[in-house]
């Protein structure tokens, strides 16, 4: 069964069509990577899935239920968790409180155990040493980890990661991939926008290519990355 299904979804800002008749489905438990040049509409697509933006036309179904008009907050309850491309921590709260607010408000499961759940996520994402530090003082890697940790605190069934590996060193990237793999291994469905291809392909089972808001290909990573049109558009290789 598909956990997420988009049918003919379009979104325009004025005359500019940033999402153009996009249709795809993600089976439960799968990790899907999304690639595309800058400005292809990748983050907009995420905002449509999370409800931070509303689609002009088309439908978005989560676990078989139409959520096209459902606000972000309720999609979070349903099980959609996200990270932002530019980390957006709650600066005046501590790292632990950033997770706590997400766990208290974003999950519809057992409220009694939220503090322990946050502690477990802090350990999993290696943020425990800075648990009581204000989020405003974190390094880039820590901010990226916090984005992921805060999304996990809502106990998502579907986790959307937006360029979570961007700007990290190779060593930091390897550590982050391990964490993402362990989350995926627990059965969480992942959709991951990323320019760092080796990071992406080491986790995802399928790749989707977006260009000018349109889906130009979806399939196994090897097959997609070897397609001539994808190489021209995305990798800039003239074949």
């Amino acid at each position, binding site marked *: 069964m598909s956990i997420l299904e988009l049918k003919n979804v379009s979104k325009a800002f004025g005359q500019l069509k940033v999402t153009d008749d996009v249709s795809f489905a993600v089976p439960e438990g799968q990790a899907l990577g999304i690639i595309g040049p800058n400005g292809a509409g990748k983050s907009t697509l995420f905002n449509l899935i999370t409800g931070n933006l509303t689609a002009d036309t088309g439908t978005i179904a989560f676990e078989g239920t139409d959520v096209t008009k459902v606000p972000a907050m309720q999609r979070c309850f349903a099980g959609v968790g996200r990270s932002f491309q530019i980390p957006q921590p709650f600066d005046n709260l501590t790292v632990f409180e950033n997770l706590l*607010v997400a766990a208290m*408000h974003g999950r519809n499961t057992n409220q009694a155990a939220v503090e322990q759940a946050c502690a477990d996520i802090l350990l999993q994402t290696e943020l425990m040493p800075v648990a*009581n530090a204000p989020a405003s003082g974190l390094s880039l890697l820590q901010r990226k980890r916090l984005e992921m940790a805060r999304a996990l605190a809502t106990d998502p069934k579907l986790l959307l990661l937006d360029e979570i590996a961007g700007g990290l060193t190779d060593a930091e990237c390897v550590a982050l991939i391990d964490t993402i793999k362990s989350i995926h291994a627990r059965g969480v469905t992942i959709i991951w926008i990323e320019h760092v291809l080796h990071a992406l392909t080491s986790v995802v089972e399928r790749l989707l290519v977006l260009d000018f808001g349109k889906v130009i290909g979806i399939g196994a990573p090897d097959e997609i990355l070897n397609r001539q049109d994808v190489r021209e558009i995305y990798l800039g290789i003239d074949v």
Partner: protein
Amino acid sequence: MTTQTQTPAYVVTTQTKASQITAVAACALLAALVLLPFVAGRGLIQDLFFVLTMLVLAQFWNLLAGYGGMVSIGQQAFVGMGAYAMFGGVILAGIDPIPAILLGGVAALIVAIPTAFFAFRLQGPYFAIGTWVIAEVMRLIMAQTQSLGGGTGTSLPRAATREMWATEWIAELFDVRNSAARDILTYWLALALAAASIAAIYALLRSKPGLALSAVRDNPEAAKSVGVDAGRMKWVVFLSSAFGTGLAGALIYVQKARISPDAAFSVTDWTAYVLFIVIIGGIGTIEGPIIGVIIFFLLQSLLADFGSWYLFTLGIIGILVMLIAPRGLWGLITDKTGIQLFPVRRRLSGGTQDTSDT
């Protein structure tokens, strides 16, 4: 509050040693202030009434702007509507002024609903100006209300103030005239309102909605993405702030016993001074308005004879504090000492790995 998690591994605490001392000191101070009319003169009681009511207005503006991120310059709308509703209750419905104070709070709450409906469509400086305009509209409406004195205003009926609840008992207890007894009564009510406001705001900040409020202030879009109902939080804060401000407005005018639209809806008295108090004390903290109101009162007493130079000096001090210490005097003190008298931070400790503050 100390919360034990389900397994003994991790513990979440908000209390600090300073906050425990504060709790004891606050109880002692409250008891001393309750008993003060037994030893203090009428002048001091009147001064403290002013300080306490300004503190209530400052705490609610701080809740709105410092915690809710809604910088309003229209709080005089709720002071004025609260005061006029109390006058209406007394003059038109014959209610005793003391229970009519509650009517003031409810009236402010009711007018806050359409106010929020319009003002929430505005952001930042537009919200600030919008709230001011709405307050002016309310002033003009009350100036047209002839049954409550129209543009020139009116006074509470002599019978209503003379026979006000509990004044006879207080007059006998302290062996004072009726007017002095009324001052003691309104002082006690101001003390109760200030203590209850601080306790309620502190309880809110330590609760689940309080944490959500901080998240919305820091980043509304991210807050929505983690399930926080940002819109509802704005309503809760705006309406609570209006209710508290309305109660304070009604109480202030029970003590004044005379009202006019220009005074009750004065942007200087009920918003500019309140802004000054919160900004110099420290916005976004409960301690800030407490320090701010003390400094404001001292400045007002020192500069009382200097007319417009008084306002000029307040303005200069306000600008200097904003430039040198944007988080106010309490911000400076916290930075230097780390002391928090009303801590809201939830600290995680215990477990197998160390957590630390950096």
